[in-house]
């Protein structure tokens, strides 16, 4: 009993840890973008690709793309690791 509960507790803890880490990554990306726009107006306005796009637009677009990508990373982990662990614990019960 003790061992099983410990294994389950470890997986639960891991879910919160992964959730918190990914949240932190998202915050870093987003607030990084905001800080770039707020403090680095020059840098954000730097032109790229023969002057057809700016650093700010590229970074903003990347942050938009990061959101679903991080979500996909989490869902993949949860489907592959978390769900089987929970199912196993449920069966044992």
């Amino acid at each position, binding site marked *: *009993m003790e061992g*099983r*509960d410990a294994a*389950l507790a470890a997986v*639960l803890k891991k879910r*919160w840890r*992964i*959730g*918190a880490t*990914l*949240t932190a990554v*998202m*915050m870093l*990306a*987003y*607030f990084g*973008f*905001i*800080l770039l*726009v*707020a*403090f680095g*107006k020059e840098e*954000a*306005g730097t*032109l790229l*690709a*023969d*002057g*057809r*796009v*700016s650093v*700010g*637009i590229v970074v*903003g*677009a990347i*942050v*938009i*793309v990061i*959101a*679903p990508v*991080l*979500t*996909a990373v*989490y*869902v993949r982990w*949860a*489907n592959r690791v978390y*769900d089987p662990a*929970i199912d196993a*614990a*449920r069966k*044992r*019960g």
Partner: protein
Amino acid sequence: MTEGSSSVAIAWFLGFVAITLGITYWAARKTRSTRDYFAAGEAISAVQNGFALAGDYMSAASFLGIAGLVATSGFDGLIYSVGWLVGWPVITFLIAEPLRNLGKYTFADVVAYRLRQRPIRIAAAASTLTVVTFYLIAQMVGAGNLIRLMFGLSYETALIIVGSVMLAYVLFGGMIATTWVQIIKAVLLLLGATLLAVLVLAQFGMNPLALFAAAKEQYGTGVLAPGKLVANPLEAISLGIALMFGCAGLPHILMRFYTVPDAKTARRSVAYATSLIGFFYLVTFILGFGASVLVGRKAIIAVDAGGNMAAPLLAGVLGGTGFLGFISAVAFATILAVVAGLTLSGAAALAHDLWGHVVRKGKVDEREQLKVARLATVGLAVLAICLGLVFQGQNVAFMVGLAFSIAASANFPALLLSMLWRRFSTRGAVASMVTGTVSSLVLITLSPTVWKDLLHNGEAIIPLKNPGIITVPLSFLVAIVVSLLTPEPEAQAGFDAAQRRMTFGPEDSLPG
């Protein structure tokens, strides 16, 4: 707007209303219990809920407003798009699954799970209704103005149409009808916006860079660089905090996770929603630039100073009257769907939290609760129309920011701590929710937007337009300090059971 496009728009809109009312009729026959009325019988699939979540979230403000902001100021519009999106991963990582497993119809179910029911329900219902009311005002006033612009109807007529069609959806079809309205609206909006973006890009060899270059040619390099929107970094971060955590505290969004059968589906549905919404914001960015180049800023501002007509005008230039009519009808449908979702979540707070758990103390008859829910729906619809009339002609754009601020500071901390922290107490939760609601309201009243621009009281007392950077940490702090000062042994004892249920869901919550 011309005669021709008006009649096409009206035809499309009537088609949308006819189909959705048909669905409402079908949904009404399936709606027998509160579980059907509030949670669509928990029978919505991951893809369906993904579209419905996106439908609930992609308001006319984000479609017309962001496209307009990009059209009139270029890069700055992107700052909003990014902000509106980044809350979604947070919902996925922290909230969606435990919420689904622990709750039934409202987020208060989760907070109250091991705490004392009545105080939590009252505080949560109060914050929910405050968020819903401000969100509704913003939507209704926006609806009145836009429909007047697009269809030539009077402001009052527009409000009555929106209010009564929405009432029909929610009153008779409950969550089943509301979900399908959201799905259809999301599909139409995504299709319309994507088609429009493809037509724009076709003018530029399918290369967004050529579009940006053309905008730069016309309006100078500034169009690709940060402009005046972020003048004060603290301001930007404060708004960012409200947007990021407010999303995970919006009652009408949280309620959607109860419409799916289990936590796994909830998780997948929010992943779909995040992709759809992210894609949508990339598309609106293209539309905004397209409008500034192909319609021209002068022409856009001539029609509406806020730039809200940028996307419809662009549709007119690229696809003719028919397409302009289609896009206008989609914008109308968008408002209708968002208002329906808000009303239903308000009705759930009134009928489930207040009537069911406070007045009837958890012992409530199904039929009675359904009746109360429907009465609440009618009341909210009337309230929405009245608020729309009262706030006619006012600048209500700040109210969405206010709704996000209250959601982020009143709902999100209580929700997160109730899931994570054993020592969280009833008093801590109530104090946190009250602090979040009241401090947001007070600080927004003292902010430049209300104090200076709206009330003309001279310089604002608080320099921040959105108080998120103060209210969110304050609400967490109050929750923690009050909980530590008022230990609640019963709540701590219930933590393990709550953890098990959060993990395994309602049916088989007890392994070992």
